């Protein structure tokens, strides 16, 4: 397989909890092997190296400051391939919840009425990376799944375009042998959320919160009804959809899209 590549990769972090980078470092058993397949040339959480000759840039976090947008444009010029890492950079994530309020109000909530340095707290509405630059591939999730991240790296090494599943979380949830949380009287976002996580949250006793974002073909109308039938009020339903997908729901009106 003479086409095997050894890409130079970099990790960049925008507004986020940096939990997705932590998931990368969490690939403990695989890290050594990983370092023989790729050259990590820029990764603040792991190395002092700060080289700009990367081919692949993994970007974590959503854009909430003008400087971040500028930084992204710079990265786009240098990288051959841009891959978003996690919910914030892929869908805007939880950060986009603030977009419902005015920037002044949001700033005040976090920093109080008289922040020490206005320049440091200035922010714009949160958005996913693809709103600023062209994105080649996306790894959703809050945080990303270790297996999926490694799968993407392998695809880059093998020279094939990585892809995401087009099925909901329920598909893998059934294969994992879980009792459906709706049977237990609890509501979940699995039926409209992009799979690929092996339903890890349900498997460990929680529910799906929808961190991987809505499927392109999600039947959101049906899901609003299902959630309603399971005791959720309109407000609560909107909150469930908004938690990870508010940017697209409010920007693109995706919540109403239905094909039969």
């Amino acid at each position: 397989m003479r086409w095997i590549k050894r890409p130079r990769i970099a990790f960049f972090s925008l507004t986020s909890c940096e939990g997705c980078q932590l998931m990368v470092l969490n690939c403990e058993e695989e890290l050594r092997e990983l370092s023989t397949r790729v050259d990590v040339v820029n990764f603040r959480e792991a190395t002092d190296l700060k080289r700009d000759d990367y081919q692949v840039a993994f970007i974590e976090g959503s854009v909430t400051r003008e400087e971040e947008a500028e930084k992204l444009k710079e990265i786009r010029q240098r990288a051959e391939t841009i891959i978003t890492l996690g919910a914030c950079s892929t869908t805007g994530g939880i950060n986009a919840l603030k977009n419902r309020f005015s920037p002044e109000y949001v700033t005040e909530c976090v920093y109080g009425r008289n922040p020490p340095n206005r320049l440091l707290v200035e922010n714009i509405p949160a958005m996913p990376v693809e709103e600023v630059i062209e994105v080649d591939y996306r790894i959703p999730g809050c945080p990303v799944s270790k297996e999926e991240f490694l799968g993407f790296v392998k695809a880059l090494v093998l020279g094939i375009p990585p892809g995401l599943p087009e099925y909901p979380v329920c598909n893998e949830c059934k294969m994992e042998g879980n009792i459906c949380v709706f049977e237990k009287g609890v509501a979940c976002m699995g039926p409209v959320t992009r799979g690929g996580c092996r339903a890890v949250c349900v498997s460990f006793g929680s529910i799906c919160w929808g961190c991987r974002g809505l499927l392109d073909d999600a039947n959101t109308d049906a899901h609003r009804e299902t959630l309603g039938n399971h005791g959720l009020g309109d407000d609560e339903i909107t909150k469930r959809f908004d938690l990870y997908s508010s940017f697209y729901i409010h920007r693109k009106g995706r919540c109403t899209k239905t094909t039969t």
Partner: protein
Amino acid sequence: MAGYFVDRRGFRSFVKGLVERYLLYGTTLQEGFPVFKKIETPEELVLSSTPTHLSPKEFLFPPEELLLRFSLEDGRGEPVVDAPEQVLMGLHPCDIHAIGLLDRVFSHGTGDVNYIERRRRTILIGTECLPDEYCFCHSMGTMDAEEGFDLFFHELKRGYLVRVGTERGRRLLERYSKPARADRTHLEEMRTHREKKLESFVRSIYARREELPLVYAGSYEHPVWERIGSRCYGCGSCNHVCPTCYCFDIRDDVTLDLKEAHRYRVWDGCTLEDFAKVAGGHNFRRHRSERLRHRFNRKFRYLADRFDGLFCVGCGRCSRTCLVGINITDVTNELIRDARS
């Protein structure tokens, strides 16, 4: 019918024998719901009168299964067949009928070595049941299992009436319990239970099952497909809980050290969006309504000729799992009603 009687003590000793000597999968309760799980102590086995939410097909046709292993260093490949000797206990008649159908599927044409090997080394033990609010096996001819099992247990007041399906089953029963010949009162008690079962169904299909392929053939353009298609998530749950759905995807993976490549088979479902999508991007069943119609037709029509039998065994699992209330008996009865009017 020749049958055996095993008292409760004999039953306990039988289960103990299985646990000690075999890889045993049986029914138990998980968070209060009946499931098939690996049974490691006799107490864990809890026979369930109602169907498990997931079917036992996973023990013969696992959700993910390694088929081939390739060495990328020397360019050789080898098939992988992982077929442990195992016992499945707590199978209801619908499950036994379903396994019979899977046997036909996987031995059709070029047989599937992985399934056939695993099946050959699997002992099937049935237990009697009662319908839940979704069951309709009495309409599908699958309420009773006359064959397709090694042993079948009918619970009685003081023990179990055991029907023997194979010599292998008889030996197993004799080795781990002290079976007596069943007498007339045992058989009578079994028949009474059967009558009670027959009276307990709340769902039925209002046509003879021989008519169903024709009913479905005449309903291709029925408005029900659009209607349920607009509610469907396309989530594949009905496919996965179904004991006779057997479609699969094949996927490759490479180990990170690039030394080995693996080829897997993974459950797939005809209700999922990209099931019929080809590499160029064309999707032969783009709409959920088309995919649901395909699934229902597979159950009641498409596979009937090929495998000499309907592929619905009336377990009702798909109706239970469907979060938007698409019920297989309601849909079928609507088609029957409109076919007759």
